[in-house]
């Protein structure tokens, strides 16, 4: 059915295998075998045959237990890791006809700095603790060709205000901040260039419940205000319920079920999803 041109990201057959795959590594792993390790070569299939379409303004959740390949998936899309096979297309890059996984590192970086943002579970992965919080945000802005210090500081101030980080601590390293505050600085950095696409990888895992709530509220507000498309990776169904419109369930590196988030939660089809939902506190 015609879905128009308002897709933002299209992923086709994305696969990541560690080690030496044999011809039937993919066909002999997965949820059916309850394993992602190739019985022949021992190669590990982090994820395989992932297809997805993300529309503008849409929030897609990816849920699954640890080791299901959900983090790998977003890391491949953010170019942190290199895929084994598969393709990804961005609508506003080369008219959506260029596989962005195949472009040069320089082009990837340009794309990352202009069109994408990423928030990692561990703030250390997204922030450089040798720089101040303001400097971390400045990095994104500088790379999008903003070389005006005054404007950079103005923008950083606005971002930190909207993520409720005390502006007085802008010139301090995030190393001195609490976990929740570090996470908010990381989010400020990720959205500094108003990217149309934001990846969130287990952003609230490891935070206190009250801090978790604050961070989630903030992400939700930013999403509503800016209309950013997001891919939210979490093992926590309540995070998925709160943030996403659609959900994909992953197990052993494959998508076992996908649908509207309320459908996944109320009428799960796959046995694994049913188990996941019934385990919800």
């Amino acid at each position, binding site marked *: *059915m015609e879905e128009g041109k308002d897709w933002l990201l299209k992923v086709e057959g994305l696969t990541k295998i560690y080690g030496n795959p044999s011809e039937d590594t993919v066909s002999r792993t997965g949820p059916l075998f309850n394993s992602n390790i190739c019985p022949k070569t021992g190669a590990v299939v982090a994820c395989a045959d992932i297809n997805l379409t993300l529309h503008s303004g849409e929030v897609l959740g990816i849920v699954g237990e640890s080791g299901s390949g959900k983090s790998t998936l977003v890391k491949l899309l953010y170019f942190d890791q290199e895929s084994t096979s598969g393709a990804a297309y961005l609508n506003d890059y080369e008219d959506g006809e260029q596989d962005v996984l195949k472009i040069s590192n320089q082009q990837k970086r340009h794309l990352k700095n202009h069109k994408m943002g990423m928030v990692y579970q561990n703030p250390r992965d997204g922030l450089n603790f040798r720089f101040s919080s303001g400097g971390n945000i400045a990095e994104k802005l500088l790379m999008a060709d903003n070389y005006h210090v005054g404007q950079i500081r103005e923008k950083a101030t606005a971002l930190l205000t909207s993520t409720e980080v005390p502006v007085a601590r802008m010139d301090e390293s995030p190393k001195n901040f609490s976990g929740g505050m570090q996470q908010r600085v990381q989010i400020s950095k990720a959205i500094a260039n108003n990217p149309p696409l934001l990846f969130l990888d287990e952003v609230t895992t490891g935070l206190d419940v009250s801090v978790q*709530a604050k961070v989630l509220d903030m992400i939700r507000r930013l999403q509503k205000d800016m209309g950013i498309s997001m891919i939210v990776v979490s093992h926590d169904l309540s995070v998925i319920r*709160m943030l996403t419109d659609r959900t994909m369930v992953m197990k052993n590196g494959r998508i076992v079920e996908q649908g*509207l988030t309320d*459908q996944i939660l*109320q*009428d799960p089809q796959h046995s694994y999803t049913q188990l996941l939902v019934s385990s919800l506190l």
Partner: protein
Amino acid sequence: MEETLIVKDLHKFFFVHILNDKEINALEGLNFSLKKGEIVGLAGKSGSGKSTLIKCIYRTNLTSSGQIIYKSKKYGEIDLTKASDYQILNLRKTEMTYCSQFLSVIPRVTAVDVVAESLITKGYNWDAARKTSKEYLSRLRLPEELWDAYPSTFSGGEQQRINVARAIISEPDFLLIDEPTASLDEKTKDVVIDMVLKLKEKGSTVLCITHDPYTMEKLTDRSIYLKHGKIIEEHVASVG
């Protein structure tokens, strides 16, 4: 009058893997249709499949077999059981609204904002949306001191009002509504009935689950009775 919704041979069973592959038949071959601008009541004992049916239409439940043809503004005639997730999301955003029996909202959002958010997705700005939201809440007689409080702390009746306001404020073309008047006092009941009738005047189609004979009488044009997942009776309400 033209039909807004045609349900053909609708089946729904739940297959519960974690209960040793238990199969539950919820709906067994439903056939009915809704005309544009109609308010149809859905009745039956609990467990008869009313909510399952409404959730199938809204795609919160996947349909096992059968068709649900909906005449949408955006896509024309579309089978809701086969439409893509993306199309369903678009319909939910622009023309189809579901008001559940229990309020399930995002925590830590105030009553006014919960209601206003329905308008934000329609493109309103926050100031205008909050203003309209407050009008609705005051018509539904929600005490003003609760407007800026979190609905999760409210009583059943108060939550019910938030729920109704949230569904009606965006004036959907097609409204699915589950027990809108269950825990409300007489006066507020009338306000809700009045609001839904106003929607009808604007051309909206409504499918409404209710146990309450008063609401059924005042609100609906006709009604459908379910028993064990089958339609046992269809009534045209006595006019006047």
